């Protein structure tokens, strides 16, 4: 397809990640490998930004992707719900060595804090985690007959997500449970970069079925079917 100067479609992942600064907060989509923007994370390692805060459901699998970014020493802090996995040895080692900070957030609170950042909600009360060590020190209040905890938005400088298809104006559709954090992260970052299997002309996607409207998408990288589906 043709890509005019104003197109959001970038020629490469490297081009799409230009300008990410040291110290950035980077939202990384995916639940395990489903929806993980593997090509973009690889490009982030190449790009070289360091002292990053990574917001993602997990803290890396095996030795590639987020795990490789962690192993390269680029990550100051991880904000996630479930770092401990059978193949999270890179994070595990760094955490035990005190070389990476962890902010552990219940999964629904993680999703809702991202949504709040995208939706202009200044803070919200949630019953999740009330009375547990994960909300120690947080402001609490009894609402609707139960203890609730005040939680704040979690905005990103950049979001890296994977979708199935984009159209030329940035509308996105996803595949099955690979949708997961992509749509909320796209709303929560100043700049959203998405990797997709293909870009189709405007009007090709059903307007009733668009999950992420183009207003939330800044840069698009076409990585082909396999990469977009989280396979290496």
């Amino acid at each position, binding site marked *: 397809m043709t890509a005019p100067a104003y197109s959001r479609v970038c020629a490469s992942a490297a081009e799409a990640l230009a300008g990410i600064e040291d110290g950035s907060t980077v939202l990384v989509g995916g639940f395990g490998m489903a929806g993980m923007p593997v090509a973009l994370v690889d490009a982030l390692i190449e790009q070289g930004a360091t002292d990053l805060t990574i917001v993602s459901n997990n803290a890396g699998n095996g030795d590639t992707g987020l795990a490789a970014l962690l192993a390269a020493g680029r990550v100051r802090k991880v904000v996630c719900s479930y770092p401990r996995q059978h193949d999270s040895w890179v994070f595990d080692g760094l955490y035990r060595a005190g070389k990476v900070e962890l902010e552990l957030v219940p999964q629904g609170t993680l999703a809702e804090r991202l*949504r709040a950042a995208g939706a202009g909600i200044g803070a919200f009360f949630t019953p999740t985690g009330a009375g547990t060590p994960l909300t120690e020190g947080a402001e609490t209040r009894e609402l609707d007959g139960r203890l609730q905890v005040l939680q704040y938005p979690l905005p990103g400088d950049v979001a890296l997500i994977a979708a199935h298809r984009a159209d030329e104006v940035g509308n996105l559709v996803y595949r099955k449970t690979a949708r997961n954090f992509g749509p909320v992260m796209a709303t929560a970052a100043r700049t959203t970069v998405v990797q997709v299997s293909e870009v189709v002309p405007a009007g090709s996607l059903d307007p009733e079925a668009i999950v992420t409207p183009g207003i939330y998408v800044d840069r698009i990288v076409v990585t082909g079917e396999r990469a977009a589906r989280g396979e290496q």
Partner: protein
Amino acid sequence: MEQHAERLDTAGLAAAVARDIPTGSYVNLGIGRPTAVAAYLDPAQRVTLHTENGMLGMGPPAEGDAIDPDLTNAGKQPVTELPGAAYFHHADSFAMMRGGHLDVCVLGAFQVSARGDLANWHTGEPDAIPAVGGAMDLAIGAKRVVVMMSLFAKDGSPKLVPECSYPLTGLACVDRVYTEVATFAVTPEAVMVTATYGMAFAELAERLQVPIVAG
């Protein structure tokens, strides 16, 4: 209170949990051991399975060519899709959980207290990597929180306790506890034994520090 001569094995425990799920329920089976419950649900129960990573209408595990890396359960295992399934994003999925729309969730546990406090995310050991996932959202969100666990730890100490010593997942949230030797209903008034399996009520009462009544 039903009394059975034999302890429940793993399959029997999953079947017991499955049998008590009301017809037409929307159910979340967490990760790990509770996911085994799915295999024992009767189609006549018309249970719709929710998975936290954004789906209602989850089908059985996927095998062979049916494996699709974009379609997994909360434990990241490949699964399938049933007719009538729907996908949604994470904020919508947890709004469904937190908002009280799921009828039942089934969770594992390290400990459950007499008043229904749940501890299932962290042993609190200094070297342990903490991980919570969606457990806290399920604990406060589902209409009925069912715990499926062994009643005694490897050292023989009970996991149904007066007060949890492990870090909490949720306060006063557990409604039912299914174990290999007994099932319990946790109510504001009492911990009620609803069935025993190969262990007499008297022995149960002696081994637990929690007061129990026969239900």
